[in-house]
């Protein structure tokens, strides 16, 4: 098509002028969003942030490397079948990188994207062992994964307890699905290493009914509760924890259990609740001035435009920023502005986020520094902790982005990815 177009143009009288600027397609960053269903409260801000960042890039910089971006949206409803339908229909539009935003859909798409030579970015979710790029060539989960989350929470507790968790009791309240089950093995290993007692408390989808689980927690009196929840489950859990008077300072959610939606419903009671994070909170970053100027004031904000600065909006924005950086990287590597999904993969694999670059982008201290390589698709796995202040209704970062326990996490990743490689006859290697 493009070739034919080029030929026709060349045949024209103004050939010399026109042929110099070949017709370029947009860079497509599909957004597999969910603005409906039991998880919509989390899906909406993420999708808004993702779309707004690209809108800003288009308006402010004229796209990436001179090529405009488009963000076609497809509603998955957090449903695997719809997710597959979305992927197949978006594939026709030449999407550069897919962010399925659901562990279930990620599992479907890992083999499909690998076969189609399209990269997938599962930021802070999906299959943890995809960190091993030797096996999972097209899946990236930088800057942190579920097992970093489990280790990060334990590290934080270690710091609070003077480096000793011996004899303590830690309970894990989790969404009884692939996502929620992910940290169990890591926490089991960590409990062996640090000598704390570990207890699993599953909650079934969608998680509105948790009375019995919290009665169990009241009876067992764990010192700390870690939560891997999502959607409506979080709100209910925080409320139930308030009901049994569980001390909120000892209740830590993973990053998918740490947004405004999860704590606002419980009001004052939720004060002091903590959550892990791998990016900054609040709207106190220079980039938000640009968002205001080029997106909101121009009337181009995605959705209702009321999510700016919320935790999940920031995560969507962060995801978009990392995708844009990887695209820029890919353009540099391959020397063309019109990149393909395969080139995008190379750009992601060579991605390095430094503090200097983050500051340049208007996001100083927003996220940890990390470097992706062929072996390591998961970055450095630095995790921070945030805390909710119910009186000002804000989250604030209360710790640095600090390293997680690679001695425990890495062997688990190696074992799990080796099992996957054996099951699917994948030749591991870089």
């Amino acid at each position: 098509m493009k070739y034919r177009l080029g030929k026709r143009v060349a045949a024209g009288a103004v050939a010399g002028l026109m042929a110099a600027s070949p017709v370029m397609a947009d860079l497509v960053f599909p957004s597999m969003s969910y603005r409906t269903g039991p998880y919509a409260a989390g899906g909406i801000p993420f999708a808004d942030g993702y779309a707004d960042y690209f809108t800003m890039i288009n308006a402010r910089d004229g796209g990436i490397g001179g090529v405009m971006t488009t963000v076609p949206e497809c509603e998955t409803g957090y449903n695997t079948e719809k997710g597959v339908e979305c992927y197949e229909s978006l594939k026709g539009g030449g999407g550069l990188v897919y962010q399925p935003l659901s562990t279930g859909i990620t599992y479907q798409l890992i083999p499909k994207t690998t076969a189609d030579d399209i990269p997938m970015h599962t930021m802070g979710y999906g299959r943890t062992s995809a960190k091993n790029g030797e096996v999972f060539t097209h899946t990236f989960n930088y800057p942190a994964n579920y097992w970093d989350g489990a280790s990060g929470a334990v590290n934080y507790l270690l710091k609070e307890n003077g480096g000793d968790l011996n004899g303590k009791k830690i309970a894990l309240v989790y969404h009884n699905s692939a996502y929620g089950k992910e940290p169990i093995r890591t926490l089991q290993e960590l409990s062996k290493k640090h000598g704390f007692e570990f207890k699993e408390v599953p909650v079934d989808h969608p998680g509105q009914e948790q009375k019995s689980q919290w009665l169990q927690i009241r009876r067992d009196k764990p010192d700390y509760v870690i939560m891997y929840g999502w959607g409506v489950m979080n709100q209910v859990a925080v409320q139930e924890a308030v009901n049994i008077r569980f001390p909120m300072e000892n209740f830590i959610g993973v990053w998918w259990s740490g947004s405004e939606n999860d704590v606002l419903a419980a009001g004052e009671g939720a004060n002091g609740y903590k959550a892990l994070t791998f990016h900054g909170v609040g709207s106190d970053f220079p980039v938000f001035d640009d968002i205001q100027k080029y997106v909101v004031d121009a009337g181009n904000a995605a959705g209702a435009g009321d999510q700016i600065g919320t935790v999940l909006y920031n995560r969507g924005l962060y995801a978009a920023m990392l995708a844009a950086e990887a695209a820029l990287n890919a353009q540099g590597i391959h020397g063309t502005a019109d990149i393909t999904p395969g080139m995008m993969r190379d750009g992601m694999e060579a991605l390095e986020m430094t503090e200097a670059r983050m500051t340049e982008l208007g996001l100083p201290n927003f996220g940890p520094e990390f470097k992706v390589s062929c072996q390591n698709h998961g970055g450095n796995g630095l995790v921070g902790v945030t805390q909710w202040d119910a009186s000002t209704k804000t989250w604030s970062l209360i710790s640095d982005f600090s390293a997680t326990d690679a001695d425990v996490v890495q062997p688990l990743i190696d074992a799990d990815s080796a099992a996957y490689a054996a099951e699917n006859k994948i030749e591991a290697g870089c």
Partner: protein
Amino acid sequence: MFYREAGDFSTTYAEDQQTFPIKFDRYRYYVVLFIAIVVIPFMVNDYWVNSIFMPFLIYAIAAIGLNILVGYCGQVSLGTGGFMAVGAYACYKLMTSMPDVSMFVHVLLSGLITAAVGVLFGLPSLRIKGFYLAVATLAAQFFLVWLFNRVPWFYNYSASGQISAPERDTFGIIITGPNTEAWAAYGFCLIFTIASAVIARNLTRGSVGRRWMAIRDMDIAAEIIGVNPLRAKLTAFAVSSFFIGISGALFFAIYLGAVEVGEVFGITKSFLVLFMIIIGGLGSIFGSFAGAAFLVLLPVVLKVVGVDLLGWPTDIVAHLQLVIVGALIVIFLIAEPHGIAQLWRVAKEKLRLWPFPH
């Protein structure tokens, strides 16, 4: 006019009893089969197979299975999702423990295993009926999902509890896994769909089907004329679960490739298949296809029209779809309880008489 019967005489009982007694219908059926088998495999791409044909074919098998139980035998069931899960997990265990055996065998075995489980959960149907049986099968649904989530043996002790289909073949053609060609996946499902429809059609018009229908229409009267309710009900459960198990196995192994039981085979799946046979038509094989096609295509069509053509926000279209499906179910229940199949039947009658309606 459209349906000419002139010159269409049957001279034997066999001719009179055939599935498509009208020549025009019969030829149309052959044309559909010809297109499905010979034309489509050469034209499909990933999108058409993964988004439209495969869900349609697989849901059609599930709908046929449920239709046998609900439509033909009158035993209300809400356990479809659970039985599909049995098929999927059986297939997974077979695939991973016997990698060299053909996928055909695995899918058939999964159907047989599901049939056995179905009979087990069908036993209460001898004592309870209607609404109470629906609740009993609902219990089966929840129990089976809980079981597959709870017992690590079923998912081979994987860390996440997900099952994912490794690459397997049949007659040297790759059928599962990411490297499957679109036509291979389509063809594999098509074979099972056609076979299921033919078997179901022949069962339901033979003596077995008559027994089911007798039980459905009035079980006491059926017993008096010599139908054994135990055998009739349990065969209905067995055959129905067999088809549902096959659809579950295909759903997991060929269509999705990885499954999380609570999400994919939850209660919503049971309702979806039930809606298919309600909208399509209870007690009709064609209805099972019509219902499956309708509920698979409707969201895709709404998405294409709403999002791609009109440019509406995706969430509005998703909500609209819920409203439309809900409204359609109510409308069908009021206006045409026998579903699309009955609409088609009436249309056909009218076309046969047209242009002389009186």
